[in-house]
């Protein structure tokens, strides 16, 4: 069972996982810009401390549900670069054999029940997973990731009510990055997020989502309490997305300023901040950090190349996996 991390290995893994997410997104963005990516994708860069801080408090068996902006959760929950890039490119070796793509990437082996292209669409799934685990008595916890914009979906209030009534081991983690698409959060959300959860009798926290240690500490506590039957919980994590809403959202001036973006990147970057702290605590040197960054970047590049070279699924797969237990749905 995971606990708040307090030794160098754990710190370094957290740092490395954040760097891996950033590197993954940089490559994904390049794939888009060089027209090698089918469709669009939503970058997680800037929010790394949330996914890593939370997922490091979970075991591989614990479940998460993810969002359209889901690469970070996927990496943080333990996924492999190659299978991820293969999925983004629609290749057979992708996590979903190319059928899901970026918006539906799922990694059953590490407990990731999947990204979701319906905003808020996974809130029921996460709560249902928590119900399952409560029934099975296996002590597992489920984390439901979603954005500030998703708090406008009525589904959340329905499942919060049931989770509270039945004491389910689920943590609702709202990544408040200040925007839903091209609209500021304050224009689409009245009142207070934490009060919304509290109204259902759910303990709610609001914290700095750029501080991986703070996120991890709180998560580890709440996960442990969930396992003891004290759930559900709600956490609002204040964070920021560095890129546009999706890779194609390049001119953002009409909804947010370049200054605002620069401010977050230079003063509140979760990776830089944690790197500085690691150095100040004497856990690593600046060179160590560079070495980690370089190694991760090479990994990512190699994985991209692997995925580019990988095969597409055979056309005959098109009607496979429509129904479990039926090999091809459309052949008699």
């Amino acid at each position, binding site marked *: 069972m995971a606990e708040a991390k307090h030794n160098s290995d754990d710190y370094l893994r957290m740092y490395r996982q954040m760097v891996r997410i950033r590197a993954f997104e940089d490559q994904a963005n390049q794939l888009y810009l060089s027209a090698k990516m089918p469709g669009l994708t939503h970058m997680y860069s800037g929010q790394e401390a949330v996914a890593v801080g939370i997922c490091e408090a979970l075991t591989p068996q614990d*479940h998460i*549900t993810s969002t359209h902006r889901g690469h970070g959760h996927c990496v943080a929950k333990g996924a492999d670069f190659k299978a991820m890039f293969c999925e983004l490119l629609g290749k057979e070796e*992708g*996590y*979903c*054999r*190319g*059928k*899901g793509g970026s918006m*539906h990437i*799922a990694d*059953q082996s590490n407990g990731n*029940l*999947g990204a*979701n292209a*319906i905003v808020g*669409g*996974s*809130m*029921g*799934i*996460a*709560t*249902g*997973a*928590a*119900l*399952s*685990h409560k*029934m*099975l008595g296996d002590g597992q916890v*489920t984390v439901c990731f979603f954005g500030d914009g998703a708090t406008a979906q*009525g*589904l959340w209030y*329905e*499942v919060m*009510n*049931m989770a509270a*009534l039945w004491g389910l081991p689920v943590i609702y983690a709202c990544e408040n990055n200040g925007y839903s698409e091209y609209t500021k959060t304050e224009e689409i959300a009245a009142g207070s997020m934490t009060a919304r959860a509290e109204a259902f009798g759910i303990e709610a926290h609001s914290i700095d989502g750029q501080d991986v240690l703070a996120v991890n500490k709180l998560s580890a506590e709440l996960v442990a309490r969930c396992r003891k039957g004290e759930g559900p919980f709600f956490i609002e994590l204040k964070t920021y997305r560095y890129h546009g809403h999706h890779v194609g959202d390049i001119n953002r001036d009409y909804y947010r300023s370049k200054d605002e973006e620069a401010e977050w990147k230079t003063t509140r970057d979760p990776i830089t901040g944690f790197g500085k702290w690691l150095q100040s605590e004497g856990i690593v040197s600046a060179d160590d950090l560079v070495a980690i960054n370089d190694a991760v970047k090479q990994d990512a590049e190699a994985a991209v190349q692997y995925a580019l070279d990988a095969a597409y699924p055979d056309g005959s797969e098109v009607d*496979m*996996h*429509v*129904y*479990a*237990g039926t090999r091809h*749905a459309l052949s*008699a």
Partner: protein
Amino acid sequence: MRQITLGKAVNEAIAEEMRRDDRVFLMGEDVAEAGTPFKITAGLVEEFGTGRVIDTPISEPGFVGMGVGAAMTGTRPIVDLMFGDFLFLVMDQLCNQAAKTHYMSGGKLTVPMVLRTNLGATRRSAAQHSQSLHALVAHIPGLKVALPSSAYEAKGLLKTAIRDDNPVVIFEDKLMYNDKAEVPEEEYLIPFGEAAVLRKGRDITLVGTSSMVQVCLKAADLLEKQGISAEVIDPRTIVPLDEATIVESAKKTSRAIVVDEGHQSYGVSAEIAARIAEKAFYHLDAPVLRFGAMDVPVPFSPALEDLTVPTPEKVAEAAAKICRGELVHAA
């Protein structure tokens, strides 16, 4: 053989499957002590406890979504949707999530969930409690759709649904809950995708779904008196659909009528009729006719509501007409 009501048959199916498999559980509004408004699940909470027979708040999207998540993670929910009309509330969780999860995950995740609900008009319940919405879910790949036409089918199909690893929507006809049929004491399952030929005939094929099977059987009785021999087929599941049995029958009789209680336009009767008309084309002596619910919201007034549903008389009349070789449309 003993006779039991459709309601009792459903109750037995759930109880037997819950006894067989600990992972099976039931959730929905007032399913526990109240046993649903139709008293279908009465007694289950006494046997299985509130941990496995779960009363929910009036949060259809929420608890169907939870059903999906539970099904993905090791349990096997039977979700009770009090009225089929509430499907409109849960379409996202059912059609965007449950139906697509297995495919989108490349086969890694499965959603063994059953959504039990109902259909059928003429209960004087007006437009929001009388719809037969099975065509909507049948249109969405990834869902299986069962339409039991008697207590026997209700039990066998539901048991199969519970054991299926895919999301299955099963529609019971509200008006049939008290109808009795022979149901064996011994366990049995009814396979999906196998139509039942309920009556053999020579002159015309009548395909009926759910309670419209009764309408077809009664029409066949009326036709018999006129010397016309009708074959009656119940597809039992419309996804998967046993096209072969239906098409072979139409080829043999060279005439067919499809009767379904959903709205006629863009409904189930269109799909079945289109397939017969296409695949038995070279054998047909008459156009394939269709009877569905009238394309109007279901009216409350008894004086109007009864006009909106197919009747044995109307089906028999149309059947007799085409069997006599009369033209039904301008030539």
